[in-house]
């Protein structure tokens, strides 16, 4: 798979369909992909502290002089982060480290990425998280390096060009897949569709109770449910689902959701987010270094995002 094979829609209409070369969808560009996602050889090192290359414990507050950039990463958070380095944010981390003239050193967590700030960054097991919302109050975030949002994913052979949560068709659809704890779940509840979907959603996680363990539907499964027809539409954050949409043998429609969603009480339900690199709040030196490097790395990062198939929005100034 090479980035050159990918074309992204213009900002006016972000709808895309993968492998639709023979179908006449006007707002759609045909793209052809090699199947699967090649795991790039990124030359990343393993567990922190497991090798001689690891910084000494005294150097944990900053990596400025260590020559290594300690990146907090989940081992198994596809497609964003995977131990073989093939995750979208692993690649971005490597590009960032290169721009900083450092070696990317991934500190792998067995647990999902949601725990990274609390259990790794805050405990100084590592120094940087790739991919958090800009302005996340728990951390200091870099200037945004891209902006994207939630997407609706449906089969191309269904005429479901839904662009907004205000589309009345959503109220009549069969199963809708949303991520647990996401704005989509909130909106499904608000529009009275959650109760009809809950058992189905839990079936996608083998009915694992979410009371005291983080439970999330695998993004690949979300897309797969649309492919196999079990769900009519999937609602995912674009970086979570773009890879699977692109890799699908069944043509799919992926539409960036308009940012006009609101709960019935008027409260806005944001659909689009700036994404940043995050460091500890007091790690100002590293933050400055990251901000500078992001400027330099920008073309490379954009290339990686485009290769992934993530629809990009203009970052508001």
């Amino acid at each position: 798979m090479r980035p050159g094979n990918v074309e992204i829609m213009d900002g006016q209409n972000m709808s895309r369909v993968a492998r639709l070369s023979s179908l006449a969808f006007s707002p759609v560009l045909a793209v052809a992909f090699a199947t699967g996602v090649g795991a790039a050889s990124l030359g990343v090192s393993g567990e922190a502290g497991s090798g001689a290359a690891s910084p000494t414990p005294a150097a944990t507050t900053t990596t400025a002089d260590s020559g290594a950039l300690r990146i907090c990463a989940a081992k198994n958070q596809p497609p964003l982060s995977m131990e073989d380095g093939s995750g979208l944010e692993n690649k971005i981390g490597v590009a960032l480290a290169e721009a900083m003239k450092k070696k990317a050193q991934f500190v792998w967590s067995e647990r999902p990425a949601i725990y990274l700030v609390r259990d790794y960054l805050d405990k100084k097991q590592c120094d940087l998280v790739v991919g958090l919302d800009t302005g996340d109050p728990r951390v200091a975030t870099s200037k945004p390096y891209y902006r994207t949002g939630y997407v609706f994913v449906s089969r191309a052979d269904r005429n479901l060009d839904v662009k907004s949560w205000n589309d009345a068709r959503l109220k009549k659809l069969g199963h809708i897949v949303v991520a647990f704890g996401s704005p989509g779940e909130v909106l499904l509840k608000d529009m009275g569709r959650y109760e009809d979907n809950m058992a189905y959603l839990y079936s996608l996680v083998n009915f694992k109770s979410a009371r005291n363990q983080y439970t999330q539907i695998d993004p690949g499964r979300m897309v797969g449910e649309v492919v196999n027809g079990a769900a009519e539409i999937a609602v995912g954050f674009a970086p979570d689902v773009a890879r699977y949409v692109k890799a699908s043998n069944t043509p799919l429609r992926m539409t960036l959701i308009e940012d006009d969603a609101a709960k019935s009480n008027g409260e806005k339900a944001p659909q689009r987010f700036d994404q940043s690199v995050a460091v500890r709040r007091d790690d100002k030196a590293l933050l400055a270094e990251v901000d500078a490097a992001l400027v330099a790395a920008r073309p490379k990062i954009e290339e990686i995002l485009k290769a992934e198939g993530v629809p990009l929005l203009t970052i508001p100034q």
Partner: protein
Amino acid sequence: MRKLLNSVSLLSVLLAAPFTMPAAHAEDKLEALTKSEDNWAMQGKNYASNHYSTLTQVNAENVKNLKVSWTFSTGLLSGHEGSPIVIDGKMYVHTSFPNNTFALNLDDPTRILWQHKPKQNAAARAVACCDIVNRGMAYWPSDGKTPSLIVKTLLDGNVVALNADSGQEYWKVENSDYKVGSTLTVAPHIYKDVVLIGSSGAELGVRGYMTAYDVRTGEQKWRAYATGPDSDVLIGDDFNKANPHYGQKGLGTATWEGDAWKIGGGTNWGWFAYDPGTNLVYYGSGNPAPWNETMRPGDNKWTMTIWGRDLDTGQAKFGYQKTPHDEWDYAGINFMMLSEQKDKEGKLRKLLTHPDRNGIVYTLDRTDGTLISADKIDDTVNVFKKIDLKSGLPVRDPEYGTRMDHLAKDVCPSAMGYHNQGLDSYDPTKELFFLGVNHICMDWEPFMLPYRAGQFFVGATLNMYPGPKGDRQKGEGLGQIKAYNAITGQFKWDKMERFAVWGGTAATAGNVVFYGTLDGFIKARHSDTGELLWKFKLPSGVIGHPIVYQHKGIEYVAIMYGVGGWPGVGLVFDLQDPTAGLGAVGAFKQLANYTQMGGGVMVFSLNGQGPYDDVNLGEYKAN
């Protein structure tokens, strides 16, 4: 119980001429069977579910001479809740998933008479919350046209009736769909010719329901939900007429926000009872869903409710909600036990007693649901200061409430409840209930983890440990056994146990109470004093309840072993994280040092007498 002396002769009449009895009388045959001490024909022993045997051959004086008579292995690991049933010289044994059944001849248990091994989708295993237990089977005697039936539930949601003579499937219906998180672990309850089946999966938003089937055909007679419109809940015209303050019409939706009642839980996987006099069946609906109480403002009716429903129509005559707006997972499915006792004013009343997960043991007038007493199962209960008998409402102590901005410590009972699924007993001559009790408290720590793109994860970490009377250093002292008088509210005696007394008790007129322990003992205590009289270490821990029957002049005590269930979830799945299994792993971390898995039945008698008194029983004979 006072008719017991006549019941054996009545039974023999029925057995002598089963095919000449008019079909209309068949309804009485099951109840008649339960009145013979030759049988233990249903899980609760009889319609009143008192789990009490009038047999006295084994008694407080000689129980120390109990020895193993014979045994049977189910061949399965995982938890074995419930008990075998014994009818007409045969014992029927159930198992955990895949829910096999074995029929054994009491005269000759050397050989299995028949076995039924259902095929079910293994995917159902993943759906069950707390190990793949099953709570046992039910029996219905032939009416001359339909054969005698064994009715059982399968984890995947099916209900199967087997020909009790052959083990062949007679009918099969799908009651629950495991694909939507609804499984079956509940034992079927048969009263007259009606099979009642509960439901599981409230944790996953399953809207609880009770279903009645015609025992002859498996045809559905009625289904009553725990939440939703009155027409779904089967709220009767005179519902709560005697106690309008319990609430009456429209509350299955009005006490929920929006359509949340559709995923509101209230499943019922425990033990029921039935009174032919009122024609009401009694059972408890369980916890509301989702677990996070902030997501379901309101009383969440009719979860956590003691129901009295007409057996034939399902219409509810009363519903008393014990824990409005549950915050702790105190699923109120616990057993219902019927008794006739004089109240404090000396008036003889028809009573229903129910020790709840929430740490309160309730006694109601079962004709109309009027609350008569509500006592703490143990004085260490702290979530409620008391139950106001007039309003029926618990008086909460907010310190021990659970909410998203509050770290609650030393909450007693824990989410497992002070009384869980154990099937306990009542001695009508002593007017004592023998309660197997959990003595477990918990810390409940809420947390919220933000993620990205507006996503977050809300959870709660539960840490469970022995109650104040246990040994928190060692992690033992997690259970009690107690003798309770529902009229005076007094406990005649109580004893601590190393682990929870999870399975329940059986009492006999021989002044003995039997029960099994998680660490694998069957024990006998004096029912007047609680004095320990006898014990025997079983191959595995017990989460089921003992039964007592006689066969050819010998009194037998039988019990299933097979540790597992919620308390054994760490052992079954080899879990180490103390907060796993909603904290059960931590609470029972010592259990694996005392017992290991393995299911079966052990049968005891005085000096071990029984079928193997004939040393040639079952011997191979050359031609």
